[in-house]
């Protein structure tokens, strides 16, 4: 296997008296899609937030391209080539779609004191990226606050994909998406993976994860239950692990195994 781009070792994270992560290790190699799975509240979002510089780990080390790293801010992580779709999307409702899309990394033209935002380019890229995901925007200056849930999520994904240089982290990216948009996102993951980007994909949908995942790590109550490679684990086994091993049979039965 290739050398990991990013390697997280024994990460712990405490919030006041709450232990959200109790020692998690994880790595991503170029060109793979590493799925992070687990029950609600298992600590997935907290974990990828430490990976993208939002939280500082209480304990543990992060190694990027073989060198130990300290991210002081998400900006540091971004400059190291890590792009993230957060579960809460990190969008500003009052700002337009384009401005949200390029927030923090605006394209410019002109130079010196006349360096200014290249709004036309920005609008074009934004509309184009959204169309590629299956959403036709009414206009790039619509406020994000007036978009539907799925439209908003698509903006966040398109943005991360556009700026994802080495690692692309997606925290439940398809939760609010329609059928067509979901297919597009999965296809996109497939495409960027083939370009050599390492993808971290969080989802509750076993089918989605089986469709694109190369490796599967399951978190449970702040700890790793283990990592499996594609082909070594079945969808049913994965599902059992994700649910924390609880009895699903009875429920499943009554609903016809549809979950």
């Amino acid at each position: 296997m290739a050398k990991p781009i990013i390697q997280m070792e024994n990460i712990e994270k405490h919030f006041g008296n709450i232990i959200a992560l109790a020692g998690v290790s994880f790595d991503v190699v170029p060109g793979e899609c590493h799925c992070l799975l687990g029950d609600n509240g298992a600590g997935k979002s907290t974990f990828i937030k430490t990976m993208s510089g939002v939280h500082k780990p209480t304990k543990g080390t992060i190694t990027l391209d073989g060198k130990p790293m300290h991210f002081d801010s998400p900006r540091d992580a971004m400059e190291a080539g890590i792009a993230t779709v957060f579960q809460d999307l990190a969008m500003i409702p009052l700002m337009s779609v384009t401005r949200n899309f390029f927030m923090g990394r605006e394209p410019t033209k002109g130079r010196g004191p006349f360096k200014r935002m290249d709004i036309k380019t920005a609008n074009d890229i934004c509309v184009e990226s959204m169309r590629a995901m299956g959403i036709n925007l009414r206009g790039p200056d619509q406020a994000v606050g007036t978009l539907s849930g799925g439209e908003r999520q698509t903006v966040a994904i398109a943005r991360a994909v556009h700026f994802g240089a080495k690692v692309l982290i997606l925290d439940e990216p398809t939760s609010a998406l329609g059928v067509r948009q979901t297919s597009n996102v999965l296809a996109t993951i497939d495409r960027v993976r083939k370009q050599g980007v390492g993808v971290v994909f969080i989802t509750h949908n076993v089918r989605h994860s089986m469709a694109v995942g190369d490796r599967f790590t399951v978190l449970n109550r702040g700890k790793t239950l283990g990592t499996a490679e594609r082909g070594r684990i079945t969808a049913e086994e994965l599902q059992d692990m994700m649910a924390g091993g609880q009895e699903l049979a009875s429920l499943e039965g009554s609903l016809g195994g549809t979950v």
Partner: protein
Amino acid sequence: MADTAQIIVDERIKKESFGSRLMQRPELGAIAGVVLVTIFFLFTADSAMFTLSGIMNFMTPAAQLGILAIGAAMLMIGGEFDLSIGSMVAFAGLIFGACVVTFGLPLIIAIPITFVFAALVGALNGAIVLRTGLPSFIVTLAFLFILRGVSLVGLKLATDGSTQLRGVRDAVEGDFLTPLFSGDAFGGLFAWLAEIGLVETFNNGAPKVPGIPVEILWFIALALAATYILLRTPYGNWIFASGGDRNAASNSGVPVRRVKISLFMLTACCAALVAIITVMDAGSTDARRGFMKEFEAIIAAVIGGCLLTGGYGSAIGAFFGAIIFGMVVIGLSYTNFDQDWFQVFLGGMLLIAVLFNNYIRKRVTGER
């Protein structure tokens, strides 16, 4: 946000007129207020108010307030307040006055020193806010008191016990930078206009309006620059983002701390600019300069459409907000209303101007 709209054919969009698209911009809503106030005074005020000299007369305080208001608006869009700008006017006035009068420095040195002091205090404000996570309201409030107190003590030191420092006008007389910060610009032009009769004159032949007060030019320049920055530069985008949602902005890679600290410095420098202009104009400074200006600046920004919660507003809005406020305050002195009723009118006019601006915007955009 004023990005160029790309028109896509979509059966789910109703047509809308150019006018209604215009009014949706926060910066333009405040114009409605200006129009209303103007109409009001056209009917009630002495006709002198809308002569050239009358306009200069109400634009001067509006400009002084407006310079502060534009700074305050940018900071508010960035999600913070600075309640210390009023005291900063007194403090920067003291620094500036002490430099030119007590130490006899030329303007080319005194002005940068004043700006540096102001920026340092602004940065200190910002650093405390960001470091501790306390609301900027309370931190800058402390500096409201501290700077006001320091100005008092400093004035007493600089003047041997008085709270008024005089003699600035003599001290800056003849300095080559003086025309940039005080007096009236385009004096020659106006003298000529007076000669050919385009501008009214006093009995002695001097033009009634000797020129455009420099603060008005600064005010307009600042409004244009701020608008350009907010709408057309990455930094402007970061300001909106930092104020809209600090976490989201920072998670998206906006350097929120840097943006906010620079905004605090900018606001303080706006206050210093007002201090320099007013001290040179008045020729003196005292410990109560700028009293309550912080609130007036915030008021002007809010009239102009800034949200107190941050992330929304415009510099042009603050520009018109300051003009509305200035017109109402000075305009009432051109009317025959009894001074006892002054505050009732001031409050009433403010309310009506804002209500009207709001009503127009809603009518036009069809939101409910």
